[in-house]
């Protein structure tokens, strides 16, 4: 089963990370990613820019309109995701737990099974 592991956290808190904290979290997360990539279970991984960089196209019966900012104003923001291929939900939860150890504190990981997946072409990595 393919799962998306969606990362939610307060972007204020994440933006307040010092460079050392940021580097530490990123390298700890990379270690988890390497482990699952080696097992052939890790797909695309993305970290999103702050919601201030977001633009939303609102559909409406007439013409859709563009608004600045994220789709919803929430206390915790959608900050990134991992796509993984896991045998069971338990395995997906175990992966999320490892992410939580690498990046402790507040926030949440939503584990969401995929209905459709189109891997698309290869994009240049950032």
């Amino acid at each position: 089963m393919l799962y998306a592991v969606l990362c939610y956290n307060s972007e204020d808190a994440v933006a307040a990370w010092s460079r050392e904290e940021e580097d530490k979290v990123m390298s700890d997360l990379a270690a988890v990613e390497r482990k699952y990539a080696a097992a052939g279970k890790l797909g695309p991984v993305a970290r999103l820019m702050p919601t201030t960089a977001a633009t939303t196209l609102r559909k409406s019966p007439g013409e859709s309109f563009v608004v600045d900012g994220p789709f919803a104003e929430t206390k915790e923001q959608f900050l990134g995701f991992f796509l993984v291929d896991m045998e069971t939900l338990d395995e997906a939860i175990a992966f999320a737990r490892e992410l939580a150890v690498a990046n402790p504190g507040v926030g949440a990981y939503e584990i969401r099974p995929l209905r459709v997946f189109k891997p698309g072409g290869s994009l240049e990595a950032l």
Partner: protein
Amino acid sequence: MSELSWIDLALSSARPQAMGALLRYFRDLDLAEEAFQEACLRAVRTWPEKGPPRDPVAWLIFVGRNSGIDHLRKRARQEPLPPEELLSDLDDVEGDLAERLDGSHYRDDILRLLFVCCHPELPATQQIALALRIVSGLSVRQIARAFLVSEAAMEQRITRAKGRIAAAGLPFEAPDAVSRTERLGVVAAMIYLVFNEGYSAGEKQRADAPFCEEAIRLSRLLLRLFPAEPEIMGLTALLLLQHSRRSARFGADGQIVLLEDQDRSLWDKRAIREALALIDKALRHRAPGSYQIQAAIAALHARAEVAEQTDWEQIDLLYQSLERIQPSPVVTLNRAVAVSKRHGPQAALDLIEPLAERLSGYFYFHGLRGGLLQQLGRAREAHDAFERAIALATTPAEAGHIRQHLDALARDIAILAK
């Protein structure tokens, strides 16, 4: 990350909103600060054991509010005349906080908190100190170090600034659309001041007082509150772009490295990408303003992979539009750099000579003028201009940079004299 550092992060990121709400309730900066402080102390005592509350901001406001009310009650018992006006709107303590927070209140709360720091009677340095203390929560010690004054002196300055704000009366009515826009402009200018204070001193000297990062944080916060304001997008982009060059701006021994000589591989690509995304968003509004134009200029530098690829013509045009929106000799001085690249040093010199009187006390004027004269082979005049610049330098790095020019000139003059 350790247990305690995530609590610190949660507390500092909750600070503007919680402080803003407490200030609205208590209408007194000191009381709001004490109440927030008390709430933080309780958080540090209880969160590690019980885990963080679902909504840390609401928790801090609720606890802070109760502790502030306790404080007022105690004070009321000690004083012969209870401060009725302070207690009068504390009736709804048990009111539904979550609902209050979801309203548009918090937006005006944070804007007000930022705005009170920008009182027009306060000199720029006091506005900066106050914002960093009250909104960002930097310690007096950190701020004092950055301004190179003693902790006691900074404490006194902040106390005095607060006194002036209290005397002037805080703006507690909910702002209408016009005054909200005015406040936004004033606050944006203050955030830019905070950034420049850090930027002009250079990274190394202020390692423990991260003014530039704080300014970016405040600017992002403001943009999140007002997501459709193109000038706040421009401001955020401008700060990100300036800050993206932080690792390349100074050499190993602290000397200034000019933009064209910087190692561009040291520029922070992530910050640049975010800034470019913000500029794209801002442009869609077709409402140009000075921060957007300055950001667009900085973006043209950021897009050039090598200095020779810089689009000086476009930069010149952008400075011309900036001159129209915000005429100032400093803007013209900046445009002169682009003019010198496009049309040579004489054209640039012709542009800045009329500014001599107004910019006679400005370091960069004499520095640029010296550089142009030097390019034109007018070594002795260049020497005099650099001498004046050095006398006006405000940091050792600025002085050191001009000293290099003077040394080079001295060699030229010596050769000519032989």
